[in-house]
C-alpha cells in the first residue's frame, strides 16, 4: 500500500495513524479532519473544560512534536464530501481528490438538534467554550436530555451556581442504558443537588428564551443545552455503495469493504463477544477500534475479530460511574456489592443467560476489574452471580 487515508482526526483517527506507524508502515498517511484543531480529547469538554478547571491546551491528545514525528500529511479544516469506492478516491468539499490504497473511516458523530434557534450543543471544543462563558451564578440553564452528557453538564452547571432544569422524555433517566433501579439512583443525585428534574416531558423546540414542551408549556431559560443523542457522520458516503444504517456497517474485523475499515463512534460492527452488531460512542472504544482497524488493514492475512468489552465512565458531582460490557437491552440488573441507597455499589447485568455488563458507582475502580474479566470470559449469569 502506497497511501493510507484516515478520515477523522479525533481519538479513533489518531489511534489508527499511530498504530500504522508503530506497525512499520512507512508510506504516506493522510489524516483528514474537519475541525481546525489538531486531535483533542472530548470527554473533558463536559467536565473540566465546562467547569473552567482546565485551560484548553490540556485537551491536546498529543504534543505538536509527537504529532510531527508521525510524519503525516495532515489536512485539518478539510471535510470529506464523497467516496469513489471502485476508483479508490476520496473527495473533499473543496474539490480535492485524494487517491488511496487503504481507507479508515473515523468521522464520528454530530449532536442531534431541536427545531428552533439559539440552543447549545456540546460536541466540540468551540461548543464547550461557548456554553462555558454563558454559565455562572444565577444563570438559568435548561438541559434537554438526561443522558450521560446532559447529566454531566447539569452537574457542572450546578457547581457553577447556575439554576438547572433537566428535561427528559423517559420516566426514569438512563433507564434504557443502565436499568430503572440504577437510573433512579443516578437521577437522585441531581435532585439532591437542587436540579429541577422533569421526566416524561417532550420538548418540541428551542424558542430563544427557553424551550417549548410538546404540550405547549414554555420553560424559560437563559441558555439551552440540547443533549438528545448523536447522528453518525455518514452522509458523505451516501452514494459510495457502502451500507450506512445508523453508522458505517462493518463486519467483525471492522471492514466495510476490501481495504476500507471504520473505527470509533461512526462504526457499526459485529462484536463477536456479544454476538450482536453495535455502535459504541465511548472514548475508550475509539482508541481500541482505531488500533484494531489499522492492524487489520495492514495485515490482511492475519486479521483478528474486534471483540472488546466496552467501557465508559462518567463524573457527576462526587459520583464516579464506571461500566464495562454491553448493557443495552439487558434483561435483568442486580446489585451484587455495596448499597444503592448510599450510591456506592456494583450492579451486574444479565442478557439472556450471560453476564453482559457491570456498573460501579463510588467503588474503587479495581472493584469491577474482575467483572470485566468475567464478561470477557463469556461467563454465565448463574456462575457470575454465584461467585460474585
Amino acid at each position, binding site marked *: 500500500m502506497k497511501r493510507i487515508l484516515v478520515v477523522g482526526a479525533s*481519538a479513533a483517527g489518531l*489511534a489508527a495513524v*499511530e*498504530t500504522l506507524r*508503530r506497525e512499520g508502515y512507512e508510506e504516506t498517511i493522510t489524516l483528514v479532519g474537519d475541525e481546525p484543531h489538531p486531535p483533542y*480529547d472530548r*470527554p473533558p469538554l463536559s467536565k473540566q473544560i465546562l467547569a473552567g478547571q482546565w485551560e484548553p491546551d*490540556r485537551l*491536546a*491528545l*498529543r504534543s505538536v512534536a*509527537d504529532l510531527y514525528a508521525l510524519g503525516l500529511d495532515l489536512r485539518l479544516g478539510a471535510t470529506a464530501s464523497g467516496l469513489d469506492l471502485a476508483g479508490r478516491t476520496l473527495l473533499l468539499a473543496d474539490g480535492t481528490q485524494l487517491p488511496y490504497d487503504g481507507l479508515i473511516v473515523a468521522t464520528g458523530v454530530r449532536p442531534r438538534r431541536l427545531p428552533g434557534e439559539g440552543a447549545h450543543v456540546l460536541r466540540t471544543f468551540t461548543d464547550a467554550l461557548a456554553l462555558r462563558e454563558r454559565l455562572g451564578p444565577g444563570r438559568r440553564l435548561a438541559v434537554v436530555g438526561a443522558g450521560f452528557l446532559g447529566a454531566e453538564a447539569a452537574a457542572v452547571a450546578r457547581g457553577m451556581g447556575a439554576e438547572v432544569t433537566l428535561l427528559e422524555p423517559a420516566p426514569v433517566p438512563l433507564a434504557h442504558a443502565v436499568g430503572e433501579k440504577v437510573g433512579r439512583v443516578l437521577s437522585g443525585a441531581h435532585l439532591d443537588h437542587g436540579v429541577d428534574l422533569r421526566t416524561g416531558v417532550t420538548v418540541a423546540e428551542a424558542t430563544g428564551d427557553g424551550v417549548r414542551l410538546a404540550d405547549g408549556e414554555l420553560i424559560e431559560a437563559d441558555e439551552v443545552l440540547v443533549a438528545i443523542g448523536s447522528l453518525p457522520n455518514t452522509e458523505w458516503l451516501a452514494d459510495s455503495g457502502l451500507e450506512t444504517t445508523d453508522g458505517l456497517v462493518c463486519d467483525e474485523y471492522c471492514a466495510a469493504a476490501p481495504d476500507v475499515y471504520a473505527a470509533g463512534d461512526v462504526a457499526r460492527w459485529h462484536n463477536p463477544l456479544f454476538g450482536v452488531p453495535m455502535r459504541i460512542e465511548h*472514548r*475508550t472504544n475509539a*482508541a*481500541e477500534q*482505531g*488500533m484494531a482497524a489499522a492492524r487489520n488493514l495492514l495485515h490482511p492475512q492475519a486479521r483478528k475479530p474486534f471483540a472488546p468489552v466496552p*467501557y465508559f*465512565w462518567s463524573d457527576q458531582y462526587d459520583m*464516579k460511574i*464506571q461500566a464495562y460490557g454491553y448493557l443495552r437491552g439487558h434483561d435483568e440488573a442486580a446489585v451484587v456489592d455495596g448499597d444503592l441507597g448510599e450510591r456506592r455499589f456494583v450492579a451486574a447485568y444479565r442478557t439472556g443467560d450471560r453476564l453482559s455488563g457491570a456498573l460501579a458507582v463510588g467503588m*474503587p*475502580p*479495581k472493584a469491577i*476489574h474482575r467483572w*470485566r474479566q468475567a464478561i470477557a470470559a463469556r461467563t454465565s449469569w448463574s456462575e457470575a452471580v454465584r461467585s460474585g
Partner: protein
Amino acid sequence: MRVEVDEPKCIAAGQCVLSAPEVFDQRDEDGIVVLLIEEPGAELHAAVKDAAVLCPAAAIRLVGE
C-alpha cells in the same frame, strides 16, 4: 524508552493495567495510575505503546522511543 504519567490527567480507567500489567498498576482507593517501571525492558515496549495509545486521558507519554 522512558515512561511518564500525568497523574492529574488520569481518570482511573485502568486501560494501562489491562495492556501492560507489569508496568502499570492503580491505587486501591481511587484507581489513579501507579507507574511500576519507569524504564521498561524491550520485551515490554509493545505493551507499553498499546497502553499509551489506549489511555483515554492521554496521560501516558513515552520518551526516547
